[in-house]
C-alpha cells in the first residue's frame, strides 16, 4: 500500500508532467480557461493514459523486444496504437455509454497527439518499470495533470480580471502565472521522501 501510494504521488506531484516535466502544455494552456472544460479534459487524459499504458507495455515487451529486436520501432508503433486506441474508445463509448461519450467525447480526439500520453508510455519503458508500476505511474501522471489543470483554471479566472501591462495581456501573463503555480509544486519535492522514508 505504501509503495502504491508512493508511486502514484511521485508521478502526480514531484514529477508532475505539466509543471515539472513540460509535457502536455498545449491542453494545459488551451483548455484551462473554464473549470468544467478543464475537468472534462483531465478525466479523458487520465482514462487514455492508463489505457494506453495498459496496451503499449505488453506490445513493447512481448512484440518489439521479443526474439527479434524491433525496439527502434517504438515511436511509430506507440503513436499509431494510441491513435487507434483513442478512435476505438470513442466509437465504443458512443455506441454503449452515450452519457460518458457526451462528457468526454469532445476531448478524446484532442489527446491523440497530446505529448503527455506518448511521454508517459515511453518513459515507463525507458525507466524499466514493471507492468503494475507502469499502470500506477500512468494513473499518477493523469491525476497530476488533473490537479494542475484544476488549480490553474482557478488561478486563471483571477488573472482574467486583472489588468496587466498591455504587452503582457493574454498569453504572456498566463505563462507568468503558470510559472508561479509551477513554483508552488517545487515545495513538495522534499515532502514525499520524508513521508515515505525515501
Amino acid at each position: 500500500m505504501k509503495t502504491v501510494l508512493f508511486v502514484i504521488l511521485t508521478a502526480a506531484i514531484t514529477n508532475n508532467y505539466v509543471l515539472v516535466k513540460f509535457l502536455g502544455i498545449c491542453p494545459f494552456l488551451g483548455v484551462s480557461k473554464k473549470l468544467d472544460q478543464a475537468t472534462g479534459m483531465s478525466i479523458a487524459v487520465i482514462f487514455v493514459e492508463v489505457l494506453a499504458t495498459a496496451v503499449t507495455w505488453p506490445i513493447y515487451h512481448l512484440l518489439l523486444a521479443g526474439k527479434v529486436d524491433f525496439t527502434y520501432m517504438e515511436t511509430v508503433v506507440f503513436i499509431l496504437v494510441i491513435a487507434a486506441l483513442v478512435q476505438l474508445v470513442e466509437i465504443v463509448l458512443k455506441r454503449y455509454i452515450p452519457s460518458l461519450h457526451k462528457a468526454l467525447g469532445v476531448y478524446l480526439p484532442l489527446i491523440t497527439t497530446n505529448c503527455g500520453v506518448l511521454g508517459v508510455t515511453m518513459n515507463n519503458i525507458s525507466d524499466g518499470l514493471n507492468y503494475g508500476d507502469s499502470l500506477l505511474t500512468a494513473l499518477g501522471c493523469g491525476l497530476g495533470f488533473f490537479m494542475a489543470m484544476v488549480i490553474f483554471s482557478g488561478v486563471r479566472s483571477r488573472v482574467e480580471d486583472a489588468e496587466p501591462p498591455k504587452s503582457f495581456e493574454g498569453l504572456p501573463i498566463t505563462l507568468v502565472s503558470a510559472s508561479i503555480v509551477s513554483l508552488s509544486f517545487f515545495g513538495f519535492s522534499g515532502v514525499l521522501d520524508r513521508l515515505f522514508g525515501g
Partner: protein
Amino acid sequence: MTKLQNLLKGLIKENPVLVLVLGTCPTLAISTSVTAAFGMGIAATVVLILSNMAISALRKVIPDTVRIPCYITVIAGFVTIVELVMEAYTYELYQSLGVYLALIVVNCIILGRAEMYANKHGVVDSAIDGLGMGLGFTLALCAMATIREILGAGTFCGMPIPWFNDNPIGILTMAPGGFFVFGCMIALVNKITKGKAITKKEFGCAACPGCGKVGSCSGKEEAAK
C-alpha cells in the same frame, strides 16, 4: 509570395514559437542549454522539411478523412530515422534530449505545417516552408536557451562566463523559470510589434493542430455540442 518571402516568414513574421505559439513543450523543456536547444532545433527542422515534402507529394493520394493518421505515420517514420542517426553519430546530444526527441512526433509545429501548408502547396514550396519554420523554431529555441543558460547557469554552450558564473539565478534553469522567460519573450514580441502579432489572440485548441480537428476546433466545438 516569392520563395525568399516564403522562407523568411517562418523566421520572424510567422515564427512558429513566438507568434503562432506552437510546439511549446520542447521549447520549455529543452531550452536550459544552448547546445541541446540547437540540436533539438536542427532535428525538428530536418523532420519538418522531410515530412512537409512527403506529405505535399502525397497530398492527392491521401484521403481527406484519414489524413491525420497518415500524417502522423509519415512524421513518426522520419522521427525514427533522425533518432537512429543521432544515436549513431551524436550520442551525447541524443542522451541529453531524451524522450523529447521521440516527442517530435507530436510536436504541434510539424503536424500544424502539414495541415496548414503542405497539403495545399507544391513539394518545393513546402520544403522551403519547412526550412523557414524549422529555422524559426531553432532561432526562438536558441534565443530562449541563451537567456536561460547565461542567467541561470552562468555558462554558454557549457563554457563558463565571468561574473554570471559567480551569480547564477538557478531558478531560471528549472521549470518555473521556463514558463517565466517564455512569457517575457512573447510579451517582448508583443511590445516590438506593437501588439499586432498576438495581442488578445485567443490561445485555444486551434493553436494546437495536433488535436486532429483543425479548423473546426477554435472554440466551436463547445457551441456545436
